[in-house]
């Protein structure tokens, strides 16, 4: 079998690799690039733990081949924080106890980030529909929904603030 030469940009950094066509994108990220924040859960495109962004659109990286990502921009959970500052979604999952075991969390956060890009002020029903491709097996979804609502509020405040920093409460 011939290998394919691919170039992918992951969290802003360009990577080149020679890969077998059968290599799944999630394995490229985890095994070749060492980015183990993206999890493999069900491995059948049901659970969403492997959710990442490809050219800005959320995707299940267990259901894509690495060769399909050639020339594309990928963002994973490792690309969400700015240095020591957590992304508002990461902080909100912490604040609202939006996780218990944490296995679904990277996928939940990546899918939530995509949802808020598409719909910055979603209703509860829209949040639940937006994360319907991501399964959590410990907490139920109440605190996950709360976390996404918190992050939506904070991100909207940042977007509206002239300085680009959060509007001080009170």
């Amino acid at each position, binding site marked *: *079998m*011939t290998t*394919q030469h691919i170039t992918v940009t992951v969290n802003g950094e360009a990577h080149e690799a020679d890969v*077998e*066509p*059968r290599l*799944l994108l999630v394995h490229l990220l985890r095994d070749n690039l060492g980015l183990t924040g993206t999890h493999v859960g069900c*491995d*059948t*495109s*049901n659970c*969403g733990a492997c*959710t990442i962004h490809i050219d800005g*659109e*959320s*995707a*299940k990286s267990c*259901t*894509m*081949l690495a*060769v*399909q990502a050639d020339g594309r921009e990928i963002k994973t959970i490792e690309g969400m924080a700015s240095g020591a500052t957590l992304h508002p979604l990461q902080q909100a999952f912490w604040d609202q106890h939006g996780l218990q075991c944490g296995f679904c969390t990277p996928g939940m956060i990546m*899918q939530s980030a*995509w*949802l808020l890009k598409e719909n910055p002020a979603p209703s509860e029903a829209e949040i639940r*529909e*937006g994360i*319907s*491709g*991501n399964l959590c097996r410990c907490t139920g979804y109440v605190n996950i929904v709360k976390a996404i609502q918190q992050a939506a509020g904070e991100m909207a405040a940042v977007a509206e603030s002239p300085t680009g920093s959060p509007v001080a409460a009170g």
Partner: protein
Amino acid sequence: MIPAQVDYVRPGNLDETLQILKDREGDAKLLAGGYSLIPLIKLRLAQPALLVDLRDVSGLDGIVETDDYLVIGAKATHRQIHEAPIIRDRYPLIYEVAGHIGDPQVRNWGTIGGSVAHADPASDWPAVLIATGATIVCRSLVGERAIPARREDVHEGRLGTAHRHFFLDTFLTAIEPHEVLTEIRINRRPRGSGGAYEKLERKIGDFATVGVAAIVVLGPDGRIARAGIGVTAVAETQFAATDAEAILVGNPPSEELFRRAGTAAGAQSRPSGDVRGPVEYKRAMAAEMTVRALRRATERALAYV
């Protein structure tokens, strides 16, 4: 799960794709979004020798109305279909199906052509194509074939070039190994017509326990002039509930009529019992989903004058 070894090629246009398919007849599979094919090759239910990625083949994702048809390109994603203004404004059946398939990630990448070619017996689009009497266009180096979704349209001889209908059996379609599914043609929506899709599922994003797509066309006298009912997940492949359609045509819409049609659709289904329920339950649900779809399709037909 690791797929078996496979070769990969990414042709730049449709002609190149068709040449590859001809040269490699039988051992190549087309790859678009991958949300049907990749699970299959991971489970090793399919083991193609070559994957032909359609990513660089342009011109296959348009969504346009011509004089006669709504034409949807094979590479249009479920999301593109859901977001197309023409679909949102004029094709509520297609709009609600496109917005409800799988989950958001699946809709971002999965394509109508991939889903239709995959022909999972519980998938949503085939029921819609059967209800609307759509044709599926396949191209090869020899030329183009327009294949009717409905078995009944072959018998009528309406669509000269095809000798058989599209959805033949479980995961089996009329596409030949050297052909590419290029577009889907759905008759333009006439005034006085409406459609709706009713899907029973255990949870959001699940495959249908049963799904029913219904089209109702009202005549000037208020009676049902034409009806199309496509049923998914309760037979070896999707089918037209022809007995139910025959009960509807020529009659004024009513709850009693819809019940009779629903019972006929349930009787025409051939479900198998599984984790989603026993045979009797699925038949009953096929009947009920038919009634619900007919109700909403009729409401929409009355509102689209």
